[in-house]
């Protein structure tokens, strides 16, 4: 972390040697200086504890090294033997640069029992404020009350660039009190706008460059599990590095398309390559690292792959156990075979 030169604001008593800030180390010059006489703290009102750090006696006096980096924009107070010095760490002037780059599902028509949104940002974001900056508006521009599952543990990826926003499953799942009392957050036929306001701070404390809006039309609920028999596979040609593609009749969960599908040999050996998802999450493509060799291959799709409403392969999001819709799940993956010629 780099700092601009600190400002020595007010050495009030000149009798005692003043504290100076040397880079990130608070120092008191002179032999005989004692750590017990030195107290460094954030300049804040009330009874606050001293700054975490360690004081050592060195050849030319005392050195206090804060345990954590000094915070730009904050003022620190150093008291040595009754003399008070203030140090202000200049604010960093940074222009907002982070933006929402994509929201999935990307389609403009979404089933009313949609389970989640994925918000992708161009830069790491701050935690702890997601639900203050997310609104779902109805066609009249009025906010929908509590559409999302607001949890303290916000569902970010490690880098803080993707947030998973779950719709409140208690309102989606049929038969539960919230579902029956207040119903689905969005209903078929309605037009909605997801608004991500610009006040959301990135990890550097800067707001977003601009507000982001995603408009969509809610369609009838989707309670049909994805059926691999309806998928279309297009095999590539031997000797080329063209992708193999798998097309779905409905959009699938964007993240899970990337996490839960792989290409192997019939013996199960993984093929190296990269994948892409496009056509509003209705097409998955895999481009091999090396040109295809002729032979049989398998696209292995995990049974836990979800569509936009949380239906997995062979199992709807909420199963009616009286009707026994659930298929017997014997294997963890569904194989989709293709031949390269």
């Amino acid at each position: 972390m780099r700092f601009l030169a600190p400002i020595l604001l007010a050495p009030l008593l000149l009798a005692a040697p003043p504290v100076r800030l040397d880079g990130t180390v608070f120092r008191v010059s002179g032999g005989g200086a004692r750590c017990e006489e030195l107290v460094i703290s954030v300049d804040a009102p009330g009874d606050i504890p001293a700054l975490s750090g360690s004081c050592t006696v060195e050849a030319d006096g005392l050195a206090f090294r804060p345990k954590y980096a000094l915070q730009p924009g904050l003022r620190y107070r150093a008291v040595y033997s009754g003399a008070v010095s203030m140090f202000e760490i200049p604010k960093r002037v940074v222009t907002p640069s982070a933006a929402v780059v994509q929201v999935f599902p990307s389609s403009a028509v979404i089933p009313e029992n949609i389970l989640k949104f994925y918000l992708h940002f161009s830069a790491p974001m701050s935690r702890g404020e997601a639900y203050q900056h997310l609104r779902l508006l109805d066609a009249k521009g009025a906010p929908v009350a509590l559409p999302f599952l607001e949890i303290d543990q916000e569902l970010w990826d490690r880098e803080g660039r993707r947030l998973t926003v779950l719709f409140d499953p208690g309102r989606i799942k049929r038969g539960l009190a919230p579902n029956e009392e207040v119903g689905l957050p969005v209903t078929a036929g309605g037009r909605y706008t997801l608004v991500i306001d610009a006040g959301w701070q990135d990890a550097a404390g800067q707001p977003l460059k601009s507000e982001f809006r995603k408009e969509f039309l809610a369609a009838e609920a989707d309670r049909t599990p994805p059926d691999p028999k309806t998928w279309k596979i297009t095999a590539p040609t031997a000797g080329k590095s063209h992708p193999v593609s798998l097309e779905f009749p409905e959009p699938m969960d964007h993240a899970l398309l990337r996490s839960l599908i792989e290409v192997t040999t019939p013996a199960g050996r993984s093929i190296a390559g990269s994948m892409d998802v496009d056509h509003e999450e209705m097409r998955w493509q895999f481009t091999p690292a090396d040109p295809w060799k002729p032979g049989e291959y398998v696209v292995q799709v995990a049974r836990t792959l979800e569509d936009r409403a949380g239906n997995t392969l062979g199992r709807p999001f909420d199963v009616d156990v009286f009707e026994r819709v659930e298929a017997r799940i014997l294997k963890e993956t569904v194989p989709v075979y293709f031949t390269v010629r």
Partner: protein
Amino acid sequence: MRLVTTFTLFASLTVAAVDYSSSLTSGKADMKSAGSLAFGPDGILFVGDSIGAAIFAIDTRDRKSAASSGSVEIAGINEKIAAMLGTAPDQILINDMAVNPLSKNAYLSVSRGKGPDAIPVIVRVSRAGKLEEIPLDKVKHSRADLPNPVEAKKDARGNNLRLDAITDLAFVDGKVFVAGLSNEEFSSNLRSIPFPFKAVEKGASVEIYHGQHGRFETNSPVRTFVPYEIKSEAYLLAAYTCTPLVKFPVSSLKPGTKVMGTTIAELGNRNRPLDMIIYQKGGHDLILMNNSSRGVMKMSAENLDKFEPIKSQVERQGVQYETLAGWKGVEQLDKFDKDNAMMLVRNDGGSLDLKTVALP
């Protein structure tokens, strides 16, 4: 949170001849984040690290029983912690709170910073209000890595975006129970990890279903839970992500099995439990829970063995609960002693107060 309950109810089970401390080694606890907390035996604090996908056992060396509990009231605890860490109150997050059942000192898991590179900190708050950091760079500890349930692919930047948020922890009968919520698939992910830690089996998670009114069921994640003994059998009372409060016997939680929780209460909209404690008052067992609208609810924990599960939509009632009108802004809740709860409360000015309150 949840430690006293574990201790009082499972004391006979946990006081086995195990030298827990000897399973820990000194050095840096390489935590990437500090989230859910739960106390185990002998002042050992379990810390959920969602970003590092691990559970840490930390020896707090805080084993001295408090002679008397007294009361605690520390206004603006978030401001004090921020000052100690050399930053502003809006630059820290307090993620969880647990009270050491022996010393009654409170432990808070804190993020210094709010971005992905925030520094994890564990702060001990003595009953006298003294704040102290647990030195994570030199502490006796051990860790259990949580296996990734799917062999997630890396994106174009070489990152694996999939992560389980650890939403709750509890130590029961020699095991740490861990509830996780994935940022990708919607499925149950409750694990039990024997302590002292060994390698966690990849298939160790239990598939827990939520059957509602005998009709619809989902493979629903458990969000928060508390151990409780019913007729000498260890149970978990758990709140699903999709709201209902259920019970299931700990003995049923075997890896690879399908477990169906029994719904004991439907808490209605806006009442998602965040923390739960169980206590005795006037000869009765009671459950206290703070919820997503920052209020507090109380319900009876008695006769749950005789309780008729909710089976049809006409029988909506379940166990009755009462919303405590005067308790507002409660963000964290744990048991302090037999008569008092400890709470982290958001006050009208927006800062957080740590205080003990008599159990209702």
